[in-house]
């Protein structure tokens, strides 16, 4: 199994380790519920060094990026980032990623760990002259500091005013004296930062952040709480809400699909799908009967199968059993009563608005 530069730190902290897409990663340190609540109320530090980074540079870099993604990177200023799906010609999703504009002709793509090799190959297949493409994943470590106290904590050991980094912007900051790319982004529904740095500095900065945030109650957070946090905020997970068989329009990512943009891979298929209306929609659901919806459980309406659960869990913040499901569009109405098949029994649920959790913005 692959190890991040922080592997030893996780073992030292007695984390429960699991195999996550070929990586030996911490699923929890003290407990998923406690870690989840700590991020919602204070702050939490994540090792997300398993994420992939692909560097695209050259005088036609923008042209290549625009062809690959559904969102519009031409509108990005230098030091700005965006979220986007990357599609197949049929509109299915290859991956969802962040695009950082490091220069007029220089982009950094941050992709899902399990998809890194697939994505790199996909991008290489569409390479054009005048662009250099490099998979730099092994040269980049990534930490995420998330939660309402994230800025206050990170500011103590940063050499720049972090309040100047707005949502989905980034800057080059010395954190604990080490060179980092710091963006105000994240995967928890909270304010916070993602911090990219050299692998050999990761351990030092990891402990520096934990030390700086001692007073505020920062703690390391495993992948278990990362999943429940992103799920409450309705942030999609590739492999659950997104796949090569699901289009971004079905997954509710329409605002990241710019059909008015020049040609991009999947545009024609997505235009057709939009004109005809999507046949399936991703919805939120809340259980009315006792039971927890889980990934792949069947969704029914009056006994007829209408879709499946993509993610489901007890929600630590709402203290309810909730789920996301991809169902036939005609049933996707808020308040509609549906059933979830749990161990052979059809349990009542209703469709509810998402996100399940939204932080209060100051």
């Amino acid at each position, binding site marked *: 199994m692959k190890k991040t530069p922080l592997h030893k730190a996780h073992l030292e902290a007695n984390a429960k380790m699991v195999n996550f897409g070929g990586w030996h990663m911490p699923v929890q340190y003290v407990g998923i519920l406690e870690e989840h609540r700590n991020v919602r109320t204070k702050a939490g530090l994540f090792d997300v060094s398993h994420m992939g980074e692909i560097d695209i540079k050259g005088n036609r870099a923008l042209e290549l990026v625009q062809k690959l993604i559904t969102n519009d990177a031409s509108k990005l200023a230098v030091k700005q980032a965006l979220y986007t799906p990357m599609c197949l010609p049929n509109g299915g999703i290859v991956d969802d990623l962040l695009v950082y504009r490091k220069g007029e002709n220089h982009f950094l793509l941050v992709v899902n760990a399990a998809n890194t090799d697939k994505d790199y190959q996909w991008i290489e297949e569409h390479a054009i002259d005048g662009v250099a493409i490099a998979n730099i994943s092994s040269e980049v470590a990534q930490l995420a500091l998330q939660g309402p106290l994230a800025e206050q904590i990170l500011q103590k050991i940063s050499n720049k005013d972090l309040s100047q980094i707005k949502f989905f912007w980034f800057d080059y900051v010395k954190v604990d004296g080490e060179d980092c790319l710091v963006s105000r982004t994240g995967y928890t529904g909270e304010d916070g930062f993602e911090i990219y740095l050299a692998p050999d500095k990761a351990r030092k900065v990891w402990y520096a952040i934990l030390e700086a945030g001692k007073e505020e109650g920062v703690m390391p957070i495993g992948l278990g709480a990362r999943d429940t946090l992103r799920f409450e905020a309705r942030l999609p997970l590739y492999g659950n809400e997104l796949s090569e068989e699901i289009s971004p329009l079905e997954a509710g990512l329409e605002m990241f699909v710019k059909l008015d943009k020049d040609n991009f891979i999947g545009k024609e298929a997505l235009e057709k799908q939009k004109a005809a209306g999507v046949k399936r929609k991703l919805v939120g659901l809340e259980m009315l009967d006792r039971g*927890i919806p889980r990934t792949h459980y069947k969704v029914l309406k009056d006994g007829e199968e209408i879709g499946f659960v993509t993610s489901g869990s007890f929600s630590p913040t709402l203290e309810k059993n909730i789920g996301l499901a991809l169902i036939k569009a005609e049933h996707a109405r808020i308040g509609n009563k549906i059933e979830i098949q749990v161990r052979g029994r059809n349990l009542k649920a209703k469709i509810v608005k998402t996100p399940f959790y939204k932080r209060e913005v100051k």
Partner: protein
Amino acid sequence: MFPKDFKYSREHEWVKIEGTKVRLGITHYAQDALGDVVFVELPEVGTEFAANDSIGVIESVKAVSDVYTPVSGKVVAINEALLDSPELVNEDPYGDGWIVEMEMSDTGELDNLMTAEEYQKFLKEEA
């Protein structure tokens, strides 16, 4: 961690024997492996089960796990406190986190179970 007067199964359940009845729960090791328990599904009182049947389900944030009875018999009591407070399974697995009580149909089946000492050894071998 291993009450001396209990008996243990290879599926990480414990039983406390009171005449022809047993009280049943999951071990400290099992609750720790599951993580935060957030949901418990219990059988109905009066249901009969054979040894090694699944009698209920325990769900943590991440995992769904069956609970098996190591003995045959009839359910005579369920721990209804778990319906509202599933975390009792984590907090007190050998006490308030008990799951059901069974009236045994064959007390001889208890001989198949491990003593505290044997279970401790079994855990070491599994690790």
